């Protein structure tokens, strides 16, 4: 299957091939893969591709097995600065 033409992160337009290549070359963790490729860093905050990225990662083991592979940060929805400011 043509991995170059499968977009995984729609917001940042990162392909399956780019993500797999980053993992292969650098043996990286979920977080490092995200930082290297920008997959999951777009406006939707990873709502669409987070589960896909997690499927591509080597599963965490031992004490870490139950952690979320990708950290979730507030705000958990896209909000404007004005809205964020008003809510403080």
């Amino acid at each position, binding site marked *: 299957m043509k991995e170059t*033409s499968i977009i995984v992160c729609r917001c940042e337009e990162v392909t399956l091939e780019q993500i797999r290549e980053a993992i292969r070359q650098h043996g990286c963790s979920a977080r490092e893969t995200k930082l290297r490729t920008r997959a999951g860093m777009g406006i939707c905050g990873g709502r669409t591709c987070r589960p896909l990225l997690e499927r591509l990662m080597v599963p965490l083991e031992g004490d870490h097995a139950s952690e979320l592979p990708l950290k979730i940060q507030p705000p*958990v929805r896209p909000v404007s600065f004005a809205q964020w400011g008003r*809510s403080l």
Partner: protein
Amino acid sequence: MNAIYDLIVVGAGPAGLAAAGSAAQAGLKVLLLDEFMKLGGRLLGQLHQEPGGAWWNGIREAELLVLGAQEAGADIATGVSVTGLERTDNNGWTLWTTQGCYRTPFVLLATGAAESANPLPGWTLPGVMSIGAAQVMTNVQRVRVGNRGVVIGMSVLAMAIMSELRLAGIELAAIVLPPGNALSGKDSNPEAVLDSLLRFANLAPNAMLKYGAKFLQNSMLRNLALNLYPKQGIRMLDVPLQLRRCAIEIVGRDAVEGVLVADITPRGEPIAGSERVVEADFVCIAGGLYPLVELAAVAGCPFRYVPELGGHVPVHGENMQTLLPGLYVAGNITGVESAKVAIAQGRVAGLSIAFSAAAEKAPGEAEIKDAMEQVKLTRHEALIQFHPDIARSRAKLYQIEIV
């Protein structure tokens, strides 16, 4: 900063609505928030016939739950997203929302589940949507999603929604499997898919699937069935269920024009030379569901990875309390199950919170126990089983974590 509520419930699906109702009934001052403009969550899209013949109409069920919560005195606001949740030192929680900030001693997260996709080339074209989006457009917004569609992915959820699309008079050209790649895993393997379909054979309106399912429990017969499975599929509700075909690419210039499909072996490998284009003007991708846990994560909840429940779930007890004081969870955030289970869990959460808060009309322990029994009973009788091992994995979760 608003600090007048004893309990803030995030999410007005079946779990949140039931919880808000029972907590308010017990005398707590409750605020229920949801980011959608309508109350009811995923319930709103549901329409199916129960084995006894009665119809489960999610819109009506939602209305009844809303009425219950309102009559009990809960305040409800729609169109408000909760964007952050933080524990404050003086035994309480701060909630950030798109409409201001709240402080409260008790929070219930009932944020439900989200869909995951199985990407393939062309899935960003206009006209491609998740199967759940097609459900919401059809049953909630009453918008025709298109004239002729292809569904990619075969699961309990896909079948349930497919039958709703048919009820709305929408033509479906075929249901095919997703292409095999690093992301689709078992979803692209006919053997594994047939196995999972057999679990809900009692739902199948197609006699062959319904009565055939029993025989197919036998693995030899199952292999035979897979090998003999007609390439053009078995028709169900007039839709060919093509277990031996997969989508390769969604094609179209500015929008969906069709899907390139290929025949596949019983193990899922495409057969060279069998490719053809099925014309369609919309495509539904049916991936899976996973618990929507964002707020539990930012609150600092410990998690457990439970594949039977759909992925990572916040660690919680049978009374729906998490390991963080004052923070509760109910519904699909605790594991993907049917709406009736979510309602039953919501009741448990509402009652346990009222008990903890020593509410004016707080329930006794016996009442909470009864409500917990009701969850198990409802789970046992649920029409749609999202996974065969839900009951066992729940028992394990509750035994290990709550002493």
